[in-house]
């Protein structure tokens, strides 16, 4: 019995209350524990990823109850990869939060941070749909706390909308779960995959409703048009390290779509035919377009980055919506890229903020350290806009390549390429205003923030680290894509996953008992 697989969930879940209990008034101790926890998470995630890399699917039956009666968590290539991505991202975000002292501007940052990690890890690992809902809620409520960390009017107002929107999303999730249970009598994803095949072609409405509602729920998380409205303000107003951590949150939605719609409601499943395959692609393309146009239209740097996130999620979703092994490979590659790039950009926003009176895209006096910041911005913007040589470009090539043979290739290509151009124009516009135009402005009546001090070295280390990861993602794109090809092969051959989950006996049950 190995318990490592549950560790990514349990470790932060124990660390957080421990921090609340024991180190509530000692920021130093909190930091040490928080960082140590995340480092341990990386180590654990690396182990799990290594274990899963040969195709091993590890099952963990919570409470010793067999699926589908109890909750199981499952480590396969995809889930361990996402766990790894989360842990790595968390480390740099945490370093930034410490370096920039964001973690001292409100209470309980580190506890909330750990809880947030717990929620994300749980969402990636669970094999049960209702448990997925619970972890969604954990990660959401922690995200509410982090989003409004340090307070401030604009942030709280944006926070209200963010919470309200997600409450609607959670409500919808429950509707979907109700429909699924009513229709199939189960909540376990693998069991669901078996049961949907039993559904009669003359009675498909129920499962179709369930499949669509679930898709909408995940689409909200993934900020797919027209369900993306929650994102711009909340990401723009969130504290920088929080926004950076949020870069993984949209990916939870993408992950869930990949998981459920390659295993349960597969593209070739009769009873749900024509559902996600019809509407997801147009919506994804629209997200891509709106996101990139938003980069051009944004009047604030932070909102610009928020729109970039929408656009990059659109790109991920375009790839996902094709539901082929190559397109999922592309989607996964782009997911990693987009997470790192978005996080880096949000942190850079904060570096820029620390020298300016606000983030409006207008010329303001130049600040010390701007050269380094501008170089970081240039690199991150290149990555996000999908220009060579960074991973955004490679991801784009992978997506375009995967779309080549599809019926909608012309649309996909046109929108991907044109929106890239718009992003390039938008980023160059913003960059030249922020970093180039600065010199011409003499110090005007609007003094730069008096209290602002140049960012700490640790902050630059964090951003630099993320960009280094992006470079690594580019340089080692070959191994990365071949791993992701393996991931997507495993996804498109779900039988081992399903049988591992369902055919392992648990307390008081043998595998055949359920049927």
């Amino acid at each position: 019995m190995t318990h490592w697989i549950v560790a990514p969930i349990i470790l932060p879940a124990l660390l957080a209350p421990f921090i609340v209990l024991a180190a509530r008034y000692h920021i130093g101790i909190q930091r040490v524990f928080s960082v140590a926890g995340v480092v341990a998470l990386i180590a654990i995630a690396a182990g799990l990823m290594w274990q899963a890399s040969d195709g091993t699917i590890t099952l963990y039956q919570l409470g010793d109850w067999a699926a589908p009666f109890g909750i199981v968590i499952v480590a396969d290539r995809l889930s361990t990869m996402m766990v790894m991505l989360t842990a790595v991202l968390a480390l740099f975000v945490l370093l930034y939060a410490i370096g920039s002292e964001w973690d001292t501007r409100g209470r309980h940052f580190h506890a909330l941070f750990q809880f947030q990690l717990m929620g994300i890890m749980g969402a990636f690992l669970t094999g049960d749909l209702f448990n997925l809902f619970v972890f969604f809620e954990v990660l959401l409520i922690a995200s509410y706390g982090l989003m409004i960390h340090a307070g401030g009017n604009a942030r709280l107002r944006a926070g209200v909308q963010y919470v309200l929107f997600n409450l609607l999303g959670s409500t919808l999730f429950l509707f979907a779960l109700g429909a699924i249970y009513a229709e199939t009598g189960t909540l376990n994803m693998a069991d669901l995959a078996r049961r949907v095949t039993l559904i009669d072609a003359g009675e498909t409405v129920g499962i179709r409703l369930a499949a669509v509602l679930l898709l909408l729920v995940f689409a909200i998380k993934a900020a797919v048009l027209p369900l993306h409205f929650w994102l711009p303000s909340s990401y723009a107003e969130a504290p920088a390290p929080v926004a950076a951590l949020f870069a993984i949150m949209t990916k939870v939605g993408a992950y869930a779509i990949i998981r459920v719609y390659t295993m349960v409601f597969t593209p070739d499943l009769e009873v749900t035919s024509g559902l996600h395959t019809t509407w997801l692609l147009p919506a994804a393309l629209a997200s891509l377009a709106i996101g990139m146009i938003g980069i051009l239209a944004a009047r604030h740097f932070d909102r610009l980055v928020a729109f970039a996130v929408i656009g990059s999620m659109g790109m991920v979703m375009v790839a996902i919506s094709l539901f082929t092994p190559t397109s999922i490979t592309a989607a996964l590659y782009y997911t990693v890229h987009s997470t790192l790039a978005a996080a880096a950009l949000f942190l850079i926003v904060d570096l820029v903020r620390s020298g300016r009176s606000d983030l409006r895209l207008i010329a303001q006096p130049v600040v010390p350290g701007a050269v380094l910041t501008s170089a970081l911005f240039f690199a991150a913007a290149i990555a996000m806009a999908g220009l060579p040589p960074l991973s955004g470009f490679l991801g784009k090539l992978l997506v375009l390549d995967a779309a080549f043979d599809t019926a909608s290739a012309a649309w996909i290509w046109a929108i991907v390429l044109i929106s890239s151009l718009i992003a390039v124009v938008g980023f160059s516009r913003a960059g030249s205003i922020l970093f180039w135009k600065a010199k011409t402005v003499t110090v005007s009546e609007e003094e730069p923030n008096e209290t602002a001090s140049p960012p700490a070295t640790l902050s630059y280390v964090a951003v630099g680290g993320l960009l280094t990861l992006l470079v690594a993602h580019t340089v080692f794109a070959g191994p990365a894509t071949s791993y992701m090809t393996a991931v997507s092969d495993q996804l498109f051959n779900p039988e081992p996953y399903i049988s591992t989950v369902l055919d392992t006996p648990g307390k008081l049950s043998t595998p055949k008992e359920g049927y």
Partner: protein
Amino acid sequence: MELLVASAIGILTAGGIYLMLRLRTFPVILGISLLTYAVNVFLFASGRLSIGGPPILRDGVDFYADPLPQALVLTAIVISFGMTAVVVMIALGAYLGADDDRVDDPVDASAGDAT
């Protein structure tokens, strides 16, 4: 009976959606609470309706309501309680800061310059 429950879900949903679309945080929060009721009843109903069979095991009784949706709804109620408390508090914080409890947040559209 099924019709009553289904239509109750419908009424709660409709009322919830209408209030959710109001312009002040307070009615919006209440609207979402109504939606929560609706979805809790719906989730509960996914175990179908049983009268007189609480899922408390008794000797000689073999008619029980489906316990699983009940457990799920219980979890959902608790979670939405936490969520509601949080949204109330955040909305209150936002109101106290700006003396304005409008839920719409006009995004500052001050112009940038592109030259």
